[in-house]
């Protein structure tokens, strides 16, 4: 599935709030077409890393490139879809229909002062149908269930036809059955529509059969590689994989090992 071209490349990235570093010496890349799970305990710097990738924060030292361009020069933000963790905690009384929320995903693509055309509305409709919410087109978003709302936010991210979709713990507050459907939908987007996925999650079990790559973060990049390698490592280090006690494999060391 994945190619050699890296959509995201991060080198020697450091970031700190006040005096404390939340990200230290991060080296990371994500191949085009991959489905990568970014895991790590609370406070491990996952959200900070996402904010840096999305250009919401600026790196204090190190380099981030997106689609082969330095992030400071990157302009095509519509290539990146983002579903935030907070999306679920929006004001449910907000008077907006599913159609209006999804259409807002086209804001950047259309550009300043441009208004939605017939084709754009058609695209909105197709996207809403694609996530299985066709019948709720004109419904206020607050009237939908948690799982359905999550789909609305996915549709909003997908409507601009992104090449990379970033999801920050999207299944928080979604029940078990809907989570399975949700992962299947992500799998379909990745396999059949060629969208590169970066999923921040606590639920490694739920996605382990879907993802192609894994990155474990705890301020430093503890593991970064293909899923098979991760599984092998998991077998070797059957306990303590998820957190502090994993022997720190340097990113470089590990990748070199993987290439052999």
């Amino acid at each position, binding site marked *: 599935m994945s190619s050699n071209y890296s959509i995201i490349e991060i080198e020697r990235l450091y970031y700190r709030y006040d005096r404390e570093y939340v990200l230290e010496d991060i080296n990371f890349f994500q191949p085009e077409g991959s489905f990568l799970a970014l895991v790590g305990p609370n406070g491990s710097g996952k959200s900070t890393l996402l904010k840096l990738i999305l*250009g919401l924060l600026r790196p204090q030292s190190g380099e981030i490139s997106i689609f082969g361009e330095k992030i400071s020069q990157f302009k095509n933000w519509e290539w990146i879809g983002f579903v935030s963790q907070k999306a679920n905690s929006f004001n449910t009384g907000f008077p907006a229909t599913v159609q209006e929320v999804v259409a807002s995903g086209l804001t950047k693509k259309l550009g300043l002062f441009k208004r939605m055309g017939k084709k754009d509305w058609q695209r909105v409709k197709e996207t809403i149908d694609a996530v299985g919410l066709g019948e709720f087109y004109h419904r206020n978003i607050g009237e939908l269930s948690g799982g359905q709302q999550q789909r609305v936010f996915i549709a909003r991210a997908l409507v601009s036809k992104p090449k990379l979709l970033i999801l920050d713990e999207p299944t928080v507050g979604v029940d078990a059955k809907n989570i399975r459907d949700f992962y299947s939908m992500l799998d379909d987007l990745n396999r059949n529509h060629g969208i590169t996925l970066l999923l921040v999650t606590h639920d490694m079990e739920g996605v382990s059969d879907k993802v192609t790559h894994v990155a474990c973060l705890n301020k430093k990049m503890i593991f970064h590689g293909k899923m098979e390698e991760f599984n092998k490592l998991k077998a070797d280090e059957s306990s303590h994989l998820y957190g502090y006690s994993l022997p720190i494999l340097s990113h470089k060391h590990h990748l070199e090992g993987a290439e052999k």
Partner: protein
Amino acid sequence: MIEGILQYEFLRNSFITGMIIGVIAPLLGVFIVVRRLSLIADALSHVTLAGIAANLLLSKQFAFFAGISPLYMGTVFSVAGALFIEKLRSVYKHFQELAIPIILSGGVGLGVIFISLADGFNTDLFGYLFGSVSAVGRTDLYLIILISIVVIMVVFALYKELFILSFDEEHARASGLHVKSIHFVFIVLVALVIAASMRIVGILLVSSLMTLPVAASIRIAKGFKQTIILSIIFGEVSVLGGLTFSYYLDLAPGGTIVMIAVLILILTMAVKKFSFQKAG
């Protein structure tokens, strides 16, 4: 009343102004309410009072200012207040609502000082606080028309940006929108609308015209566009109805306009309850 409107320019001006603010106040009000910034309108209206008081004081000292409508100075103060609110919100990042009482009390404080220095302006003060049907002069009307054109054009041009900013600020940022600039433009528009609405509704009640029609509309509307349309209809009914009552019963229009808006709100709540019971 029709003869009155045809006969007297002041009445004509008031009704035209009423029709305009019945559109622009609820239009911006929708964005204010959904962004939970309702109190900003109150803070800015009190700053506008300071501007008007400043003008009245200056006009006692300098003949030049006597020829200028206080509305212009009020508008300048209102916009300056909006800019200051933004500055305070960035200084107190974790206590953003602090900006509102600071600006509000600062505006009243400054206004009271100007009023005292000018030895009061008793007759006018009531009109400024609660609105008046006879207060809109021709130059005021020109300014109000200009403000409304600017407001409607900007909202039309930046509609999708304002929507995304209101619904999900983080998403707006992640989409690469320059959130700060858009918010800045928005807050200046709010200041302009407050200045424009003030003569009819009065300083103390101007924020109600931005919030009450929206509060009613939000109960029954499907979607954002419909919320805007219903808010404008409710705003328009309140202003025109309020002005009519005010004219016939010789009451301050601010009061009659707000009471009609409250009545509409109660009606929509009752309708919603009734339709729920019917559905249930």
